[in-house]
């Protein structure tokens, strides 16, 4: 069939290419290539990236069956595998407190694992075996719903660059020491920790992402931080804690990040920053800060507005600003403190090009803020405003006010989004 020259032309490609092809296939298809021909029999077994999920096994409504077959598949694949495994990812919700996972982690710890991702769905928290802490070459770790308990002899992951812990149960001191014992850590993401007081000491850290109920965050030693994203949830006792706190949170958090390029704060972030705020001049300028996103800013609270102002006025190269108001409009709308806006020194935003205001309820401070921005941004190109609420009257009033505002930039477009 076919001429002799029409031979198999893919089996003799270099192994690195075959691997790159097989890595792009779902693991099940990759393993199936073993029956294609004699040359392909073991090509899959040297893959260094193994990604498992429940798609590896046939679907079934019987959870027990799926679990069993998934365990079989993974165990077999690991057993038949040859050579180092650099990446192992397991994302499934079918493995309910499965003892085999411990064995897999043990196997991986002996095989130079570099990237480990365990996302175990909605089942019980998986207690990570201590052999995980023997994975000396780990560069990336992502755990989802696990329980971590570093042994006392643990000296840290010396190669770890990226750490992502989502809904992980771990003692607070353990977290801090884990972070500080990973000297190369560049990217840190912590989500859904309960009431955490955190001191982050990571000299190489570049990307920080925090989400959850944090009582206190202090960026002690993070000089290289480039991007921060924080979502702070608030429950009652944290609110009390906020009231009682005396230290200046703004300085604690943003005092030591001169290289910051991108800041994103959600929910109660600005409120958090406003605690303990005093009106001293900030000594730090964020020369590289280009994008600021602050969501749920409470425009009724003067302190929060001051935080925002301070932030944007310390960023001479700011190009994009996204602000959203908190959508719980108070019944009483207090009169704007006009003095404040007059008092602000003659500051212009030299580079500001794009401003997006969302969830605007027409509160006086909001309008003053917009007016302030419009009159101080000579390079502004787009100001986009999205009102919240369906009160047509209010929107009309907003629009009428908007039209009056003086614009420093001749090419500024004001885009009022209807809904």
């Amino acid at each position, binding site marked *: 069939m*076919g001429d002799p020259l*029409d*031979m*198999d*032309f*893919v*089996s003799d*490609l*270099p192994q*690195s*290419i075959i691997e*790159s*092809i*097989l890595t*792009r*296939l*779902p693991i*099940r*298809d990759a*393993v*199936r*290539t*073993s*029956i*294609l*021909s*004699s*040359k*392909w*029999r*073991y090509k899959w*077994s040297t893959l260094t990236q193994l990604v498992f999920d429940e798609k*590896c*096994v*046939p679907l079934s409504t019987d959870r027990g069956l799926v679990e*069993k*077959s*998934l*365990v*079989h*598949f993974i*165990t*077999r694949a690991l*057993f*038949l595998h*040859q050579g180092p495994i650099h990446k192992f990812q397991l994302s499934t919700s079918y493995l309910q407190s499965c003892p085999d996972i411990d064995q897999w982690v043990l196997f991986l710890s002996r095989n130079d694992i570099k990237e480990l991702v365990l996302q175990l769905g909605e089942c019980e928290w998986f207690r990570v075996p201590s052999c995980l802490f023997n994975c000396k070459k780990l560069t990336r770790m992502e755990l989802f719903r696990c329980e971590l308990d570093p042994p006392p002899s643990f000296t840290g992951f010396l190669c770890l660059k990226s750490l992502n812990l989502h809904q992980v149960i771990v003692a607070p001191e353990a977290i801090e020491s884990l972070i500080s014992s990973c000297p190369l850590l560049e990217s840190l993401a912590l989500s859904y920790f309960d009431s955490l007081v955190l001191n982050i000491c990571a000299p190489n850290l570049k990307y920080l992402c925090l989400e959850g109920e944090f009582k206190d965050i202090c960026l002690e030693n993070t000089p290289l931080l480039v991007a921060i994203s924080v979502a702070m949830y608030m429950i009652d006792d944290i609110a009390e804690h906020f009231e009682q706190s005396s230290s200046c949170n703004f300085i604690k958090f943003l005092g030591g990040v001169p290289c910051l390029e991108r800041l994103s704060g959600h929910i109660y972030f600005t409120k958090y920053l406003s605690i303990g705020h005093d009106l001293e001049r900030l000594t730090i300028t964020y020369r590289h800060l280009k994008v600021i996103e602050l969501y749920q800013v409470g425009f009724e609270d003067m302190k929060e507005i001051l935080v925002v102002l301070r932030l944007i006025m310390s960023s001479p190269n700011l190009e994009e600003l996204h602000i959203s108001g908190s959508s719980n409009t108070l019944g009483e709308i207090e009169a704007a403190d006009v003095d404040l806006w007059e008092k602000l020194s003659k500051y212009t935003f030299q580079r500001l090009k794009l401003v997006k205001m969302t969830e605007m309820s027409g509160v006086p401070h909001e309008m003053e803020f917009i007016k302030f921005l419009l009159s101080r941004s000579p390079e502004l190109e787009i100001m986009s405003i999205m009102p919240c609420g369906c009160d047509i009257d209010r929107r009309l009033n907003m629009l009428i006010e908007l039209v009056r505002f003086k614009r420093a930039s001749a090419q500024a477009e004001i885009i009022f989004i209807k809904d």
Partner: protein
Amino acid sequence: MSEGVMAVVKPEMKSYIWLQTADGSIQQVEEEVAMFCPMICREILQTGMGSSKNYAISLPQRVNPAILGLILDYCRFHQVPGRSNKERKTFDEKFIRMDTKRLCELTSAADSLQLKPLVDLTSRALARIIEGKTPEEIRETFHLPDDLTEEEKLEPLRNITDDPRIRLLNRLYARKRKELKEREKLKNVEVEEERVDERSVEDLLTFINGGGEDSKGVRANKNKKKNRRRKDHPKDSSSNSVYGNHNKELDVLSSSCHDGEVNNMASPSKNSKLQDSTSVTFSPKLEFDDGDIDDDIDPAMKEELDREVEDFARRLNSDWPERMQEILSLGQERRLVPISMNGNGSTHRYTSMSCIVWIGDNNLMVNDSFVRMSSSSFEWIARDASMRFAAEEAVEELAMSFGAR
């Protein structure tokens, strides 16, 4: 054509690089396009070649002129800095629309020129081609030879050992099994063949799927402990005691039946033995006890084995009456003979290469161990529902013969 026109056609101010492909043909390319390839770039910078026709840069062997043209088109587009990501993506999508063979050549050439973005692009395209296809479709697309025997497809994958003896054995068995298969083909059992084919792929899938309804347990790869256990096991049951008596070579030869039993009884859930469905009757896995072989094979044994295999082949080829004669004469020796169930409307089956007994209408080969072995192998066969009919018949006949004696 005035010379003025000609002059306009050739752009001044551009510098060209000369490239030579393995077949000797030389092309010239704009410098910035050629510099997009890391390998060419390095050559130019390090050796200074490529500036004239005589000093053309020779490209690696995997790059032929047609493919070079494609690669240069790619470079020409992407080296322009001002393009948006969307434009680049659209270009890439259109660029890789070509037949599979050319895609493979392109991948190979891009790899030898170290043009990583193109290697990634083509790998992704090849992965998309492979994904979701059945093995037959993949073989057809890539012209892969289907050179695994049915048995090999069924065999559980194992860690490769470099032992040449094992490889030799594997080859021997593969050859014998191929011959068996050919014989079967000649005897017009197409239905069976199809079934076997299905099973072979299914079996592999059951391996991947973690076992179908027939799998009796899960067998991991060879490890010595497991082999030991299997060797010890015969002492426990009478039906297996026969095997305990056999010498090693027979163990290996008969291991397929043997295993079927042991696996069922041992049922080692802890040991996680994944097993291809033993219900495949045509060619159950020939257990390569790496442990066994490693332990016991020595040249003398191997020669025994060779002889065994040759004997077997001979028997297969000879006619039935002659075979009968032989068997009778071999008598007390524990020899394995081919089985085929014949007559009574039952179908031909080679249940295994090794453990086969022939039953004719009124002829029954009897010697003690021989009979016992065959009955146990029938039991084993009987587990396969599809064989149940034939097996029952065979067992009945056995019983009758005992009675007759």
